[in-house]
């Protein structure tokens, strides 16, 4: 019954949850466009032929083939070839599409094999959807072999593994049969049991399969290396009275490599309801509908002495299970099968798939609780008749007492306790709707005019794991989103409301809120935006450019967006080019498609394509987070003129210099020519000069025309002979470009660069490089340091620097980013002194609330960074800062978790110190 956290399970969970997150901008566009049209899910429209095929599978009697194939043969002859053909082994994310799934199920049926009606694969098929290949194949194999993968024989596991390699899900054949040179299975099992008995008791009846299910595996981490072959055995308990035991060892050295462990619960000691539930879920699976009757009764009995935290997420369910008894069916009770039949009849929906049925007793009344899942049919459109249903059946008369559909307000106990107990258990616990109501009251206390529960204005979302996150998502651009956070016991905090009236400057943001990222908008959205902008008077440049631009209908031009994108990509000549943002703007003589071409290089061109002739009208450079977005939705002549008018020629010159001479890979291109400590600005009409102040620095000269276009942009050597002072504390210190050629002595090319004083290179040399001449040895050093100090934040500063140097790109080393680790100034405080000062400061703020002992127990992590951002203002400090973490050991995670932090300067002045118990770590 145990359900493992298998690779397939983890994959399915993360893959489906994050399925909207991918690198293909057009896929995202298709999804968001469809979502905007009101569909709840996106999937392929079914062909008439497929619909017919599915109907045939689901309702028609299928003629059996003359010679029936076995499960294994169908997997080999149908399932695997389908999986191989449809993706050529792209990876483990693949699914059968609806057609392929239908073909596979048809083959199963033709050979007399049926999957259970409420099986997820069949449910997907009934809905015209595809399903995960690995899960589908695993399901067929489970039906043939029983249990789970690890309980199969080694032959079965070996066969399955070969198939997975064939499909491309696994890279190499690791789970395998032992060879002649390996231990025999029987000997390995005996060795494992002996080791468990030596550790946990000689009288353990490990061979008793009514108590434990045995999982086993023989695997080779590296199939080419016999020494990597090993054995693993786990005894999974079938009830909660027995512990779980596990053993693993290498085949070549069993005694020397053996590792034995166990999870044993002592229920005679105090325990919580959550611990108990967790253990039941481990033994009987997370699908409660599958639990046997006796498991429910045992849970009920053991909950009587469990402690239940009223603010835990499972409090209501645990209370309900504690109140309800689960007796064995007696003579007066109708049978489980009869109860299921009557309950299903009452639902009158052939799609109803059984979840479970359990006999309950509360206040003397015995009731069968029967639960069903009804999946939506049709094209993924919201279907009110679908959902999770619980039917209460009188166990004596068979009368239907109640039939309910689970709502967002309900808990996990919904289908497994009678209604009276279920409602009683809610006393003193807040439901979702009550949480929302509390949020509404608190928000309206601050913002009385917000009509939050008006369904035409807001869509309410309430979600969360340890706290409720309540969002009132605006359905109209006239108002903004409102968000808040509510604790399980109803404390409302972090209210944020966008209540600004719609204006020319926030229209853009509101459209983003309603339509998603603008890069995926269709032309019709831009047309609507233009209409909404009429009558508004923007002040900022972005809004003013929207207002100044006309967005025609796509149907008014000869070249449509697909063709324009093709032309745009051809214009870049990049094989990997992709297009993001494609908007049609009015221009002379013809409208122009403006698009951003995504490439694998740093400068992403913005291209204009004439919508009538297909000619390239212009190309501009774009750098995410640096180039303003209005470059993507207005013509260059429009935005350049407005930039010149509103932002001025020096700004435009700076952008031109950065684009031409800056390193566009960097988040903040290094040519920060408006930094007056390094450059002096001279302006002569539309000729702008940034003069380098120090020896070796470049100077720049830019000439613009009256419309803001760049006529000339030149770089020249500075005439200054003055050396730049060292250690000015400036964050944007200029670093001359090094050459990535190894130094004559074989040391890394960056060795000795002057972003650190020579004495520190010497120190590093002495520490690490006297015997180790290249960075190739870093991985081994890292391993040692991890063992000696733990995570990198606990390392001495110089070790952190080496780590940075190893992982940094050449660009980062030429122009180190803001937070790279630097060498402490020897004349100032040492790392140890800084940590002591920080800890003392932490004592001052944390002692009162947490106690001195607690603060003393914190482990201090520290790093001296080139610069830091003030978390309160978001601005740079402009000097080296020590970042200090105060970590507390949390047994639950066996890990140091940060509970506070401090920022200090090199003289030991505390800039910020903060206790953050709710930090995410």
């Amino acid at each position, binding site marked *: 019954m145990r359900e493992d956290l298998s690779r397939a399970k983890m*994959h399915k969970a993360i893959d489906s949850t994050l399925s*909207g997150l991918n690198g293909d901008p057009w896929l995202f566009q298709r999804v968001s466009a469809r979502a905007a049209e009101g569909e709840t899910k996106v999937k392929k429209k079914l062909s008439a032929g497929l619909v017919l095929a599915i109907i045939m599978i689901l309702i028609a009697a299928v003629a059996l083939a003359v010679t029936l194939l076995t499960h294994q043969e169908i997997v080999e002859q149908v399932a695997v070839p389908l999986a191989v053909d449809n993706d050529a082994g792209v990876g483990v994310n693949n699914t059968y599409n609806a057609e392929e799934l239908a073909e596979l199920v048809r083959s199963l049926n033709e050979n007399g094999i049926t999957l259970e009606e409420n099986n997820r694969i069949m449910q997907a098929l009934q809905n015209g959807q595809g399903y995960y290949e690995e899960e589908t194949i695993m399901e067929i194999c489970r039906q043939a072999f029983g249990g789970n993968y690890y309980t199969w024989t080694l032959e079965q596991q070996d066969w399955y593994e070969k198939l997975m390699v064939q499909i491309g899900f696994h890279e190499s054949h690791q789970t395998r049969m032992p060879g002649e040179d390996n231990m025999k299975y029987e000997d390995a099992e005996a060795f494992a049991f002996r080791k468990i008995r030596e550790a946990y008791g000689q009288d353990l009846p490990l061979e008793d399969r009514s108590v434990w299910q045995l999982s086993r595996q023989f695997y080779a981490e590296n199939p080419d290396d016999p020494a990597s072959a090993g054995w693993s055995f786990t005894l999974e308990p079938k009830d909660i009275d027995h512990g779980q035991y596990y053993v693993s060892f290498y085949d070549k050295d069993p005694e020397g490599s053996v590792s034995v462990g166990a999870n044993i619960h002592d229920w005679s000691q105090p325990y919580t309801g959550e611990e108990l539930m967790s253990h039941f879920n481990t033994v009987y699976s997370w699908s409660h509908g599958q639990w046997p009757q006796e498991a429910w009764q045992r849970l009920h009995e053991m909950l009587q002495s469990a402690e239940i935290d009223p603010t835990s997420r499972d409090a209501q369910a645990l209370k309900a299970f504690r109140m309800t008894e689960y007796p064995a069916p007696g003579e007066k009770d109708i049978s489980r099968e009869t109860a299921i039949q009557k309950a299903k009849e009452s639902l009158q929906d052939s799609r109803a798939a059984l979840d479970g049925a359990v006999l309950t007793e509360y206040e003397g009344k015995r009731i069968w609780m029967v639960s069903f899942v009804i999946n939506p049919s049709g094209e993924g459109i919201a279907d009110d008749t679908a959902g999770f249903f619980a039917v209460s059946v009188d166990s004596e008369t068979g009368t239907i007492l109640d039939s309910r559909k689970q709502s967002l307000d309900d808990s996990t106990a919904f289908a497994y306790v009678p209604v009276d107990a279920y409602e009683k258990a809610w006393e003193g616990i807040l439901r979702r709707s009550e949480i929302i109501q509390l949020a509404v009251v608190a928000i309206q206390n601050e913002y009385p005019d917000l009509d939050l529960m008006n369904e035409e204005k807001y869509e309410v979302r309430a979600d969360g794991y340890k706290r409720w996150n309540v969002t009132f998502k605006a359905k109209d651009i006239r108002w903004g989103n409102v968000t808040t956070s509510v604790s399980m016991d109803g404390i409302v905090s972090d209210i944020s409301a966008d209540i600004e009236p719609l204006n020319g400057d926030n229209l853009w943001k509101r459209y983003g809120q309603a339509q*998603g990222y603008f890069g995926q908008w269709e032309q019709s959205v831009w047309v609507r935006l233009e209409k909404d902008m009429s009558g508004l008077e923007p002040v900022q440049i972005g809004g003013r450019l929207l207002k100044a631009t006309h967005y025609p209908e796509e149907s008014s031009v000869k070249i449509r967006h697909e063709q324009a994108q093709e032309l745009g990509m051809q214009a870049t000549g990049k094989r990997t080019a992709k297009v993001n943002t494609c908007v049609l703007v009015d221009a002379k003589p013809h409208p122009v498609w403006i698009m951003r071409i995504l490439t694998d290089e740093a400068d992403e061109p913005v291209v204009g394509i004439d919508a009538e002739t297909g000619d390239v009208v212009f190309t501009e450079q774009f750098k995410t987070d640096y180039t303003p977005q209005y470059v993507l939705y207005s013509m260059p002549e429009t935005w350049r003129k407005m930039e010149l008018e509103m932002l001025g020629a020096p700004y435009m010159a700076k952008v031109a210099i950065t684009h031409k001479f800056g390193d566009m890979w960097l988040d903040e291109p290094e040519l920060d020519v408006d930094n007056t400590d390094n450059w002096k600005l001279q302006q002569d009409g539309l000729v702008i000069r940034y003069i380098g102040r120090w020896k070796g620095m470049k100077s720049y000269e830019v000439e613009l025309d009256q419309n803001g276009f760049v006529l000339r942009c030149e770089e020249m050597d500075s005439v200054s002979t003055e050396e730049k002072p060292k250690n000015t504390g400036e964050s944007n210190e200029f670093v001359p470009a090094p050459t990535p050629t190894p130094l004559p002595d074989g040391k890394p090319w960056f060795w000795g660069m002057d972003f650190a004083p020579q004495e520190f290179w010497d120190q590093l040399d002495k520490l690490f490089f006297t015997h180790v001449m290249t960075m190739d040895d870093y991985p081994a050093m890292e391993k040692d340091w991890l063992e000696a100090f733990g995570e990198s934040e606990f390392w001495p500063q110089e070790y952190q620097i080496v780590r940075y140097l190893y992982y940094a790109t050449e660009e980062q080393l030429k122009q180190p980013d803001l937070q790279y680790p630097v060498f402490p100034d020897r004349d100032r405080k040492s790392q140890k002194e800084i940590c002591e000062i920080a800890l003392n400061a932490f004592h001052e703020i944390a002692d009162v609330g947490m106690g001195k002992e607690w603060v003393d127990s914190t482990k201090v992590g520290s*790093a001296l960074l080139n610069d830091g951002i003030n978390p309160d203002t978001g601005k740079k400090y402009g000097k080296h800062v020590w970042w200090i973490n105060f970590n507390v050991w949390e047994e639950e*995670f066996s890990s140091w978790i940060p509970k506070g932090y401090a920022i200090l300067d090199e003289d030991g002045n505390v800039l910020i110190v903060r206790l953050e118990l709710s930090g995410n770590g």
Partner: protein
Amino acid sequence: MERAAVPSMIREQRLNQWIEDYSDSILRTCFLYLSDQTQAEDATQDTWIKAWKHMNDFERKGIANEKAWLLRIAINTCKDYRRTAWFRHVDRSKALDELPPQLIAVEPEDRTLTLMVMDLPDRYKQVILLHFFQGLTTQETADALNTSQSTVQRRLKKAEELLKGSLTGGVTYEG
């Protein structure tokens, strides 16, 4: 440091192939690590840049498992991204809400499991992502994290326990 030059065409082809094969899974790993789509996209881009720049090392050292190598770069990039005050205030459940709509129906249990993975301490999240999600072996995971195989196995065991312990009773608060 000796550099064996890899011809640029081969580098381009190789990078193209890597992006095609691993782009989504690296982006998702970065997202699970950073809980912020924009930052994850940036970290993914940084990962490709670093992979491009270090391709000579990749060639010279004869690294056999390119996926493990790329994931190691991605995780180290994410580690560096996390060293800011900003990351202390990221709400992981909101991060999921801000993602593009899912392409396929998501079962509540799956969503909860994903949130739980995002909420694990780094050391456990790393092994879960590399071993369970990315499908690396324990040895490959150990190599990618620069630790021993037995450490990986211990962490996997603990991570599984943490996840299972947190998943009692399925999803109550799905909204």
